[in-house]
């Protein structure tokens, strides 16, 4: 079909300024339309490509929607038991100290069942990079409440909204681990607009550069939508995220060069 508005005269390989990196396996992603997992994957792979370290990098995928990351990222990957990715990554890094090692984990994986592994890997200051996708919910299993679910937020197991008195407070695990001396760089980013995506990519690059220098653990939280679990369209969910998630999970650097950044207080 002849495409309307196609400027065929400039459609030449030498004029390509953006295309999906070959480090993403060329198959459809299993994620719901508009889910940030795909964008986060691609930024990570773009950084590996730009640093030319794909063949020296080993990733650990979690349990959660991104369990299949090993099918999409065209690098060496291992799958960890639920929540255990930082422990597995510790072993890999110690056996292959000259390789780049990262984990890619959701909030249910990292901040619920894997809390112990997260905190101790951070506290030991393992020279790994943790990519933490916080969508405030257990996406894969049907949108159950997670430790990260906001007060009042509905989920399939808090249908009237999270009641803090009976269900507890949301856990800001990123702030929590930032206080550990083994942790060198902590930042919170997003991937729902072009500017946010560009910042996330810079943060991932910084973390992997620091891993090369053996500075200690680097931790990147990406606040993302789970539009299926939140029961919204992708565009609505991104708006809801800006209005509700960002005031609680404030974007920006939390710890840089081993020093905590003073953040403005939230109410």
């Amino acid at each position: 079909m002849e495409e309307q508005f196609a400027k065929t005269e400039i459609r030449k390989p030498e004029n390509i300024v953006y295309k999906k990196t070959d480090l993403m396996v060329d198959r459809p992603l299993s994620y719901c339309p508009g889910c940030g997992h795909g964008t986060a994957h691609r930024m990570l792979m773009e950084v590996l490509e730009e640093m030319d370290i794909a063949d020296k990098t080993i990733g650990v995928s979690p349990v959660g929607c991104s369990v299949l990351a090993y099918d999409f990222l065209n690098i060496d990957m291992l799958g960890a038991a639920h929540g255990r990715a930082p422990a597995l990554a510790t072993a890999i890094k110690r056996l292959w100290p000259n390789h780049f090692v990262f984990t890619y984990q959701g909030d249910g994986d990292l901040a619920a069942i894997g809390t112990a592994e997260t905190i101790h890997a951070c506290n030991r200051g393992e020279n790994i990079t943790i990519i933490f996708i916080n969508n405030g919910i257990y996406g894969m299993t049907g949108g159950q409440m997670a430790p990260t679910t906001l007060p009042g937020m509905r989920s399939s197991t808090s249908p009237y909204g999270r009641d803090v008195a009976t269900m507890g407070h949301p856990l800001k695990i990123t702030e929590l681990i930032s206080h550990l001396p083994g942790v060198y760089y902590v930042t919170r980013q997003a991937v729902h607009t072009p500017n946010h995506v560009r910042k996330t990519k810079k943060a991932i690059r910084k973390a992997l550069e620091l891993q090369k220098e053996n500075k200690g653990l680097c931790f990147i939280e990406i606040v993302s939508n789970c539009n299926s679990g939140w029961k919204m369209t992708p565009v609505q969910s991104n708006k809801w995220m800006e209005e509700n998630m960002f005031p609680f999970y404030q974007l920006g650097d939390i710890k840089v060069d081993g020093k905590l950044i003073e953040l403005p207080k939230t109410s």
Partner: protein
Amino acid sequence: MAKIIGDIAINNERCKGCEVCIAACPFTVIAMSKEVNSKGYHFAIKVNGECTGCTNCAIVCPDGVITVYRAKVATV
């Protein structure tokens, strides 16, 4: 004289119709098709020729289905 022009190519079959790219475009180049692809998704299409090749839409597309071209062309 020369000017910069851009163009995007969208992989219709891989588009999931999430519409995240639409708001990312400064020149409202993208809208959704009336037809659906083989998966049943309305897909992103171009609705004007204003693309400058800024890459915004492609960077934010979760499924990475947009390829962006940019070139300097001579004007008369």
